C-alpha cells in the first residue's frame, strides 16, 4: 500500500478556503503522473510481438493513470487553481519515493518488466487499504518488501479527505472557468473524463481515480466493470486472469494463463540517467531525444490544462513520438555493457528537438 505523510491529510483537513487545497490537488496530479514513467518503462521493455497479455495489462493501467492525472487537473481548474506541469520539479527522480510518499515506504525505479517488479512495486503502488484475499493456484512465494512505518496515512485517506473537504465547502467550491475543462470522447469515454462543473462531478471524478486503482472494498472490479489496477497487476504476477468463481470470496486467479517470456523482454539498464550513456553513443542520442520529447509533452499538457485545450492533440502526437523513440532506445546496445538503453524520463528543455 502506498503510504503518505500524515501531515498531507492534515493539510487537507485544515483547509479553510478552496485555495488551501491547491497544493494538495497539485500533489495528486504529480502523484498520478509519477506512476506513468515506471509503468511505461516496463511496457517499453517488452519486445514487440512478445508478451502481448502483459503489455495489454500494463498499457491499460498506464492509460488509466493518464486519465487520473487528467481528472486531477480538471479538479484543480474546477476549484480555481492552475495545474503546474511544465516544471523540472514535476518529475520525481527515479529511483526514489513517489510524491507525498513516506520516504522509507517504497522506492520506485525505472526497470524492465519482471514479475518481481510488478509484485514489489506496482502492486504496492495500487494496493487497496483492505485488499480482498483472493486465492491463487499456488503460493506466490513472494513477500512485500516495503516495511510500513508506524505512523502513516494512505492515498485512499488522502482522496477521502479531499472529498470530505469539498463537501464541507459545498457547491460554491466550483468556481473555475468551464472552458478550462478537458473532455474529449475520442480519447476517453465521457463517463470517465468529463468536465467538472459541479460538486457532484468533482466527487465522481475522485471516485474514478480511487476505484480504478484499488477497486472497492467489496469487489476487485471498478465501476466500469474492469479489473482494478491492483488486481490487474496481480493477474500478471500470478500468471492467470481473475475469474468469478462460486466459492468465497467469489474470484480466483484461475483464468486464462498470462505468460511472461523472459526472452521477450529487453535487458534494459535499470534506473538509468541519460548521462550514464556515453556521450557519443546512439543510446545517448536517443535518450536525449526521448527526454526532449517528454519535456515538450509536459509543456504541451501544461498548455492543455491552462486554457489551450486544443493542445491535447499535439500532446497525443508527442506521445507517439515518445513511444517510437523509446522503441528504438530499448533495442540499442549501451556500449561497454550487455544491456540496452532505457528511457530515463528527465526534464531537458534544450535536448534534441
Amino acid at each position, binding site marked *: 500500500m502506498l503510504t503518505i505523510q500524515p501531515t498531507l491529510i492534515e493539510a487537507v483537513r485544515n483547509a479553510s478556503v478552496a485555495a488551501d487545497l491547491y497544493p494538495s490537488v497539485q500533489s495528486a496530479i504529480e502523484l498520478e503522473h509519477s506512476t506513468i514513467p515506471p509503468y*511505461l518503462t516496463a*511496457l*517499453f521493455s*517488452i*519486445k*514487440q*510481438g512478445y508478451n*502481448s497479455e502483459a*503489455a*495489454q495489462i*500494463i*498499457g*491499460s493501467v*498506464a*492509460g*488509466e493513470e*493518464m*486519465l487520473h492525472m487528467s481528472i486531477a487537473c480538471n479538479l484543480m481548474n474546477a476549484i480555481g487553481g492552475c495545474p503546474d506541469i511544465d516544471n523540472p520539479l514535476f518529475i520525481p527522480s527515479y529511483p526514489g519515493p513517489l510524491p507525498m510518499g513516506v520516504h522509507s515506504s517504497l522506492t520506485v525505479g525505472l526497470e524492465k518488466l519482471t514479475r518481481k517488479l510488478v509484485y514489489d512495486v506496482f502492486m504496492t503502488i495500487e494496493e487497496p487499504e483492505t485488499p480482498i484475499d483472493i486465492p491463487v493456484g499456488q503460493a506466490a512465494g513472494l513477500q512485500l518488501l516495503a516495511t510500513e512505518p508506524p505512523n502513516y496515512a494512505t492515498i485512499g485517506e488522502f482522496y477521502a479527505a479531499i472529498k470530505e473537504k469539498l463537501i464541507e465547502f459545498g457547491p460554491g467550491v466550483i468556481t473555475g472557468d468551464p472552458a478550462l475543462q478537458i473532455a474529449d*470522447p*475520442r*480519447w*476517453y*469515454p465521457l*463517463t*470517465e473524463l468529463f468536465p467538472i462543473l459541479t460538486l457532484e462531478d468533482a466527487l465522481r471524478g475522485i471516485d474514478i481515480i480511487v476505484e480504478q486503482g484499488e477497486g472497492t472494498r467489496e469487489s476487485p472490479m471498478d465501476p466500469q466493470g474492469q479489473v482494478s489496477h491492483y488486481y490487474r497487476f496481480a493477474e500478471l504476477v500470478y500468471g492467470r486472469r481473475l475469474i468469478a468463481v462460486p466459492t468465497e470470496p467469489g474470484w480466483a486467479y484461475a483464468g486464462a494463463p498470462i505468460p511472461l517470456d523472459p526472452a521477450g523482454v529487453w535487458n534494459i539498464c535499470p534506473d538509468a540517467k541519460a548521462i550514464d550513456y*556515453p556521450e*557519443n*553513443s*546512439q543510446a545517448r*542520442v536517443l535518450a*536525449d*531525444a526521448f527526454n*526532449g*520529447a517528454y519535456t*515538450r509533452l509536459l*509543456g*504541451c499538457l501544461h*498548455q492543455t490544462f491552462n486554457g489551450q485545450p486544443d*493542445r491535447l*492533440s*499535439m500532446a*497525443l*502526437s*508527442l*506521445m*507517439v*513520438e515518445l*513511444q*517510437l*523513440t523509446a*522503441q*528504438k532506445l530499448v*533495442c540499442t*546496445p549501451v*556500449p561497454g555493457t550487455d544491456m540496452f538503453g532505457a528511457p530515463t524520463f528527465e526534464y531537458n*528543455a*534544450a535536448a*534534441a*528537438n
Partner: protein
Amino acid sequence: MAFLNPIRLTFAGQFQADVSTVNNDVRHYDDAKFQPNFQDLQTKKNPNGWWNPTGSGAYRFINCRVTGVGYADGSWVNDKAQDAAIGMTIAGAADRTAGKLVDIDPQWQLASAPWGLGVRLLSAAGQVFGGEYKNNPFRDLWFSRNVNATNDSAASSTFQSVIEGVVFDEAGLADSRVLRELREASSGDRLSIRLATFGYDGDASSPSFTLGTMIGTIGPYTEGEPESFVFGRRFAPASGFSSYGANITYFSGLLDGASRTLLLDLSNALQITDNRGTPADIGVLSVGVLADDSIAENTPVTTDNLLPLGSIDYQRPDWLADTGGVVAIPLEDEQFEAASQRPLALVYQAPFNPGATGEGDGLGVVAIRETVGGLFAGAEPAVHRIDAGTSSELTLWAARYGQPLDAQQVNLRQLGRIPGQGAGTSNPQVDDIPIPDMGVPETALSFPSTATTEGGRAAVELVGGNPDNPRGYLDGQMYLIDYRLPGQGNASRQPFDFVVVHVRDAYEVPDRPTWTADVQPILQQFSNLYPIMSKGFIDLSDRAAVLANRDILQLAFSRPIEDPNYMPVTRDLSEPKRQMLLAWLADPDGELADSAGAEAEPVQPGHRPAVAPPITTPEPDYAATLDSKTQFAHNFLHAGRRAGS
C-alpha cells in the same frame, strides 16, 4: 541582405536527420513488387531498404550554441562577457514533435526541406526568441567538401530561409546588444537564417549515426528580399561543382552600402579535412576586385589587374564554427566603388602556379570568381506541389553585380523527358521494376517561356494540368524547370539549381470511398515505405488497425501541411486524395452506423502491431555501401551527359 548582415549571430553544433531510406529507391513505390526485406537494413549483399529503413524523418538541432555575434557598426565579438547571446542554445520547438526533413519525390532527392521545424534561442532563464523555419529546401549541395571522406559524408549544403512569427522576450534582450539590434533591424516578425550542414554520418554501426555538423547564422530579414537565397554577388566555379585547384564551390556575397562592407558567405564554400569543419589548407586566401570580366579562374593576378580588398583568416582555429563562415571586409570608398562595378574574386597563393607565390607583383591566382557579367538569377520557392487544375506562383529575381535588373528578360523552359531517375544499384529484386521517366507529358505543366523583371523581380504562374498517371505506381509527375538570363551560361548556375515541380494526377473524390478500391492502395504504399509507422505504431495496410486508430489518423490527416505531425510526412498526397481518406475515416465504408453510440476505447499507450519493425543492428561486417544523395546526383548528372545538356 538577409543573414549576410553586419548584425548577425552565429551558432554551431550538430543536427540529426533521421530520414527514412526505404523511399530512396523509386522502385520501392511499386506495391505489386514490394518485398518484405525492402524494410530491412542493407547488408553487404543486398541494399534492402538502404541505410536507415526505420528512420522517423525527424530533423533536430543538437547541442547548437551561439559562438559569436556581429553588430551594426561592423564589430564582431565572441566573448560571453561582451554579449549575453553568446553561449545561448539554438533548439527546436518547445511544445510539439520534432520537425521533419522531407524530399519532394524519390525522383528528385536534391531539394530536401525541413517542415515544422521550430527555431528558438534559449538562455539559462528561458526562451529569448522563437519562431518557425519556413520550409525552404537546401541549395548548393556538393559532394567533395570533406577531402578525407567519401559520398554523403563528404557532402555539404546550405539551407537558407526565414524564421516566421518571431517573438522576442523583452527581458532576454536586456543583456544582449545583438538581439536588440536584430529586432530593431528586422521587418515585421521575421528573421533570416542560413544553416550549413556537412559531416553527415549515415553508417548505422557508428555512434553518431544520423548526426552531422551544423553551422548557422541568423540575421535580420528585410521586407521584399528573397527568403531562400542572397540577392547579391554570386561566385561560381568555371565548371563542375568546384573551382580548379582551390576546390571552392558556389557561394554568395553582397556589398552593404550602409556600412561599406563586403560580406561573403563561405559557410559551404571551402573544402574541409574533418567532420568538424576544419578548412583544408590552400594557403593565403584573400578577396579582391578584378580589373575586367576577362580574367578567368586559375589566372595569375597582379596589382595591375586586381584591387585587393582584404584577407580571409580561414586558417584560424575554429574559424568556421566561430564565424559561421561569414567574412566581413570593411572597404575604403575607392574599393567600394570598384567592387560595385566589376567582378569580385577570391585569390590564393597556389604554390604550383606561376605568379602565385607573391614574388614580383604576383598576388596569387584566381581561386574562384564572380559569374561572367556579374549575372545572377534566382527563383523561389524552389519546390512546388501542384494539384491538377491548380497553380502556384514562382518569383524570379535578376541582378548584375548585385544591382536589381529592371525590364530584364528571364527565360524558362522545361527540361523535358529524363529517364532513369531515383533508382539504386542493380539488384535482382528490383531490376525488373520499370523506372518511370520524369518530365512528361510536358503539357501537364504550363508557364510562360519568358518573364520580364520589374525592380529586379518577376512573378510567373505555374499551372498544373493532369499528368494522367504517367509514372504508374507513383502519383503525378516530376518536372524540372531551367531558368536563366539571356547569355547566362551553365557554369554560372549550380548544377542542381532548378525549379522543381510535382504535378499531381487529377482525382475526383468518390461519394462513398471504399477501403478496397480507394483507401488501401494509398495506405499500402505508405505502409511499405515507412516501417517506423507501420510496424512501430499503426499498420496502415491493415483495415482493422486503421479503424482501431481512426481518431488519431483523422487528426494526423487533417493537420495543416506546415504541422510537423502532418500525414503523410512526405507531403506527397494530393489534396483530393487526402479529402478522400478523411471522408473514409469519417464513415468507414458506411459502417459508422454500426459503431455509433459505442464508447471510445480509453487511450492505451504502447499499442503497436504484433510484427516488429526490423531492428537496425548492423551485421558485424556491415559496411554502408550506398549513399542516397551521392547516388541520386550521380544518376542525374549521368542522364544530363547522355542527353547532352
